């Protein structure tokens, strides 16, 4: 296919988040000429996440990642907490096997992404911060439009391949029709505070030693019954604390998102973790929760989409993933682009190596495995009634009120008959959960 103008770069990557940086890094290491454009004043300054990165994939890209990158703590404790107004039931899983080899780390993205961008620069990519890409340049191709570059203000820059790594809102992917506006049940808003505390205080409060870290996932009263959850993640000398609420449910219930967050922060079982801490930063982020359903086309002639921009996030109920999927998509994209450039074919067909490699990878296969998880997690009972049911059963067991005890099973059965949850719902959710998760 003839090019009308000589490209300025082989590849232009829009957005210096994890997906953009890893794509740029891999391609620069292949010897490709790469421009990485970032709208923030510096790489990382527009980027925010809850904070847990499942790190095996990024360790393959950067073998020295755990020692060199600005990671916070290595997660050895996962606490799944059903929170009610006056009670709390949880599964507290702490395991030293999670530290060796390290499986997940907490990160603060302004710091991590600045490091990733440095790595890109060392590998030979050109970084252009403080520049907003306004639109992509297109030309009429063999079939439909072909992306040939980007426009930022007055400047036009051309490339053989443009990578949209511009995050969950991806105006770029929407502009060219690779993504449409999402239904609200596929979207959530995350609100987060980073609260500074001395590291010894964090280690004592969360039962940690050295650089071990805890990830607490909360459902129930933390979101005032709105679909979603809360989290507390330990950093070295701060705590990332936040709530994530589904937009369809938030708007239907006419709740104010900051009231929900305040309610969580003030909850009697959450506030003690944060007591005496100073707010370091307040932020928020839109979250794609549609899972597999959100992913449509991720390539077209001259362009592909990676990470959040491609809708790559996965909430399985236990693990909430996005950053590791960004890494996996970036690795697959860099391979796909590399082979397309080698064959001098960067059409959709020439870039087909990207979706093939991604969906064959563990990350792509996980997206398919958990395709039913979003619908399952939308069930209202998850956010309110199950936590109360668990607490009522345990209360009957622990509350020795001078009445003769009955077997736990019959206590559970009686509690269930009094609960708004029906036995058939419990069975149905159990089966659906087993199939979805």
């Amino acid at each position: 296919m003839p090019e009308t103008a000589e490209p300025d770069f082989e590849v232009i990557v829009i957005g210096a988040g994890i997906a953009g940086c890893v794509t740029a890094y891999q391609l620069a290491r292949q010897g490709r000429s790469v421009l990485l454009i970032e709208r923030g004043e510096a790489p990382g300054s527009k980027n925010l996440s809850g904070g847990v990165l499942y790190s095996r994939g990024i360790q393959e890209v950067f073998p020295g990642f755990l020692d060199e990158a600005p990671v916070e703590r290595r997660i050895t404790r996962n606490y799944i907490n059903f929170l009610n107004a006056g009670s709390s039931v949880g599964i507290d899983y702490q395991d030293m096997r999670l530290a060796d080899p390290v499986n997940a780390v907490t990160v603060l993205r302004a710091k991590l992404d600045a490091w990733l961008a440095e790595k890109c620069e060392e590998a030979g990519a050109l970084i252009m911060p403080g520049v907003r890409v306004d639109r992509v340049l297109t030309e009429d191709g063999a079939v439909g439009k072909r992306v040939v570059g980007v426009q930022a203000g007055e400047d036009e820059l051309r490339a053989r391949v443009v990578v949209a790594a511009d995050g969950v809102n991806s105006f770029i992917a929407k502009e060219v029709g690779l993504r449409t506006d999402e239904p609200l049940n596929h979207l959530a808003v995350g609100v987060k505070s980073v609260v500074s505390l001395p590291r010894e205080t964090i280690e004592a409060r969360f039962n940690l030693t050295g650089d071990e870290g805890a990830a607490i996932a909360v459902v129930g009263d933390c979101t005032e019954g709105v679909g979603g959850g809360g989290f507390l993640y330990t950093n070295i000398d701060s705590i990332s604390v936040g709530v994530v609420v589904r937009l369809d449910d938030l708007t239907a219930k006419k709740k104010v998102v900051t009231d929900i967050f305040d309610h969580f922060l003030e909850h009697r079982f959450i506030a003690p973790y944060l007591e005496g801490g100073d707010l370091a930063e307040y932020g928020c982020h839109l979250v794609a929760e549609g899972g597999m359903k959100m992913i449509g086309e991720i390539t077209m002639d001259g362009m592909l989409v990676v990470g959040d921009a491609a809708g790559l996030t996965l909430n399985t109920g236990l693990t909430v993933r996005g950053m590791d999927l960004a890494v996996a998509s970036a690795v697959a994209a860099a391979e796909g682009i590399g082979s397309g450039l080698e064959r001098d074919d960067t059409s959709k067909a020439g870039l087909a190596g990207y979706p093939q490699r991604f969906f064959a990878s563990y990350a792509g296969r996980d997206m398919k495995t958990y395709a039913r998880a979003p619908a399952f997690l939308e069930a209202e009972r998850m956010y309110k009634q199950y936590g109360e049911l668990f607490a009522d059963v345990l209360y009957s067991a622990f509350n020795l009120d001078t009445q003769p005890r009955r077997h736990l099973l019959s206590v559970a059965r009686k509690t269930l008959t009094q609960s708004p949850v029906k036995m058939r719902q419990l069975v149905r959710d159990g089966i659906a959960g087993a199939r979805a998760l």
Partner: protein
Amino acid sequence: MKPLSIPERLTKNRFNLDEQECHIEVNQEIARATGTGKAIVACCPAHVYTEEPDGTISVEYAACLECGTCLAVAAPGALKWHYPRGGFGVQFREG
């Protein structure tokens, strides 16, 4: 411990305010007719939007954390929202 107010929280963040260009524009008629006005007031974590006594929605674009939630819940035509110009807006130091 009472959490800080939203404006107090925002003072902890670093912003490069673009004094030339506002990146948010509300179409008051559509916002009122579709309920978008109340929805964006409720869903914005930074309290960028306020419903005034006359029912119009005022915009404090300097406080925007650039998440895009308002755009996601807004009815078609009710809201113009794009990212601030390069280098402007919130600059996270933690993230």
